[in-house]
């Protein structure tokens, strides 16, 4: 496929020098089109279309726009689920890569588009496939977008599958509005105001046993999650691995102490 794309490029009529420097029309003039970009685009496109979910999620499109009508992200960003589906259907690696740089991250994965789609497409699903590929391939844009989530990810992967209010840094979420920081300052008191019986904690959701944590880590490792995270944030993976290694030692000591094999 890569070779094919390159041969197409070679067969293009010779262009003037200043035109050669011009970026591809497909990229909307926003990025340089080097051979590396073409190869990356083709690689990602091949992974995308080979994903078993691709055939299942992308069926066809009547371009009715009902998905975009219900989309909360479309109201605030230059983003449209209909456009993302068209991108997924476009058969053009460069169009796909271009959308993966920024647009796919505007989706809030609420699945309203799926609810609305009269063709039965899984639009939010195909967007999440694109996101996975952006992370797996370590796109710079993915690194940038995911930076605010580093601490959350650290907590989730070391403390079990839990996010608590204390972990979220309002400074990174400007779209939460100016009051987010002051409103989040006294979460303990606010929690007390919840009329139903809840665990009155803000720094964790519940305690996960060490054995469970180690097992979870093994699942992350074997399912490729660790590799995915490494592609965008190798430092984070190192940090997590250090913590888990310590646990493992501690766990082995405990087993020895209590005579468990």
């Amino acid at each position, binding site marked *: 496929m890569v070779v094919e794309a390159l041969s197409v490029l070679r067969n293009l009529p010779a262009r003037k020098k200043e035109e050669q420097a011009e970026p591809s029309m497909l990229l909307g003039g926003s990025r340089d089109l080097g051979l590396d970009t073409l190869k990356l685009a083709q690689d990602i496109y091949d992974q995308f279309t080979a994903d078993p979910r691709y055939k299942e999620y992308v069926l066809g499109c*009547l371009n009715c*726009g*009902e*998905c975009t*009508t219900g989309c909360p992200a*479309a109201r605030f960003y230059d983003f449209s689920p209909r456009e993302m589906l068209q991108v997924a259907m476009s058969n053009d690696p460069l169009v796909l890569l271009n959308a993966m740089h920024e647009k796919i991250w505007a989706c809030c994965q609420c699945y309203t588009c799926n609810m609305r789609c009269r*063709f*039965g497409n899984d639009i939010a699903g195909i967007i999440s496939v694109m996101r996975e590929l952006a992370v797996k391939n370590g796109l710079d844009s993915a690194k940038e977008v995911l930076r605010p989530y580093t601490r959350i990810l650290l907590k989730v992967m070391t403390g079990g599958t839990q996010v608590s209010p204390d972990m979220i840094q309002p400074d990174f979420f400007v779209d939460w509005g100016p009051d987010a920081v002051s409103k989040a300052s006294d979460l303990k008191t606010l929690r007390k105001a919840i009329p139903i019986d809840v665990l009155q904690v803000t720094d964790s959701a519940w305690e996960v046993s060490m054995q469970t944590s180690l097992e979870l880590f093994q699942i992350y490792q074997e399912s490729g999650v660790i590799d995915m995270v490494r592609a965008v944030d190798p430092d984070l993976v190192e940090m997590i691995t250090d913590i888990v290694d310590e646990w493992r030692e501690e766990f082995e000591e405990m087993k020895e102490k209590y005579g468990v094999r």
Partner: protein
Amino acid sequence: MSSPRILVVGGGPAGLSAAWDLAEAGANVVLVEEEGFLGGTPKKLHYSLIAPDLKPVQEVLDPLVRRVEQSGVEVMLNSEVASFKGSGDGFHVEVRRKGGSLESHVFDSVIAATGFAHWDPHKKYEYGYGVYPDVLDFKDFERMLSEDNLRRPSNGETPKRIAWLLCVGSRDKQVGKFYCCRMGCVVSIKQAMEVRQKHPEIDTYVYYMDIRTYGFWEDKVYWRSMEEFNVKFVRGRIGSINRGEDGRLVAMAEDTILQRPTEVPFDMLVLATGMEASRGTVEFAKLAGLELEEHGFIKPLQSDSLPVHTTVEGIFVAGTATGPKAIPDSVSEGSAAAMKALNFARRKAVAERQQTR
């Protein structure tokens, strides 16, 4: 040789056309109709003008009804087929008149012209039908037009802006209606033209994903609506309806040409409700053992070359019982089914005579 005895089920355009042709050809025709009048759904739901000539529905249907009434067809109103059994000597049919009395008949062949029903837009809750009184469907709006009573149901005022939303209950996997209703585009545009003709001060907007005014409807309806009536078209579907602060409807849609989400206030919204097989069609098919095709209509024996044959020998079908269709098409199919039913009855009579000889 005695005249063939033929049953026509349904007194809409297709059934009327079939009954008239059969009577003219000398058959003994019984026409069974569940309503108390002839004319079918267009009459029952008080349709207004009929495209493309914008003729009032009476001018289209009344001549057909009159011909049937004058041609010696035995018309059974307020009646339905209660039991149905095919055997060697013909179809044994019991017809129940409203009130309970059963009449037994034997027929040589049968024509099902049992028609369609409009899809119920309550099932598409995001369009607000049944929630907001100013959201109407085809049958509500046709009636409003035919009674020349164009008012907002919410407050009785004349609307200033009306929107149409095409393909409600058609071309939609979510509600299990995969097919095009064929009529929604032309009827919506026709309605907008009617509105503009009577009330040039009202703005009319049609929200569409495709306009399918096939054949001569293209220039006679679609183009004309823009050239003469300034009907406006927005390419994109309304995805949800909200109530605005002033009590108007707010239509949320993506304009897929401008590629942006839009919110536009309207006084009224008309939902172009699609066509599905009528209750009568489904029940008669069950009684007579006719196969249905994948969309729930009666299955023609061969949809290309034998469109009015059913999967049961001697039973024929015409009109919207086999799928969405315009009135002229239904009338043509009525005649076609009449021919086939008559031929079948005659062939059967010849075969019987040869047997007894």
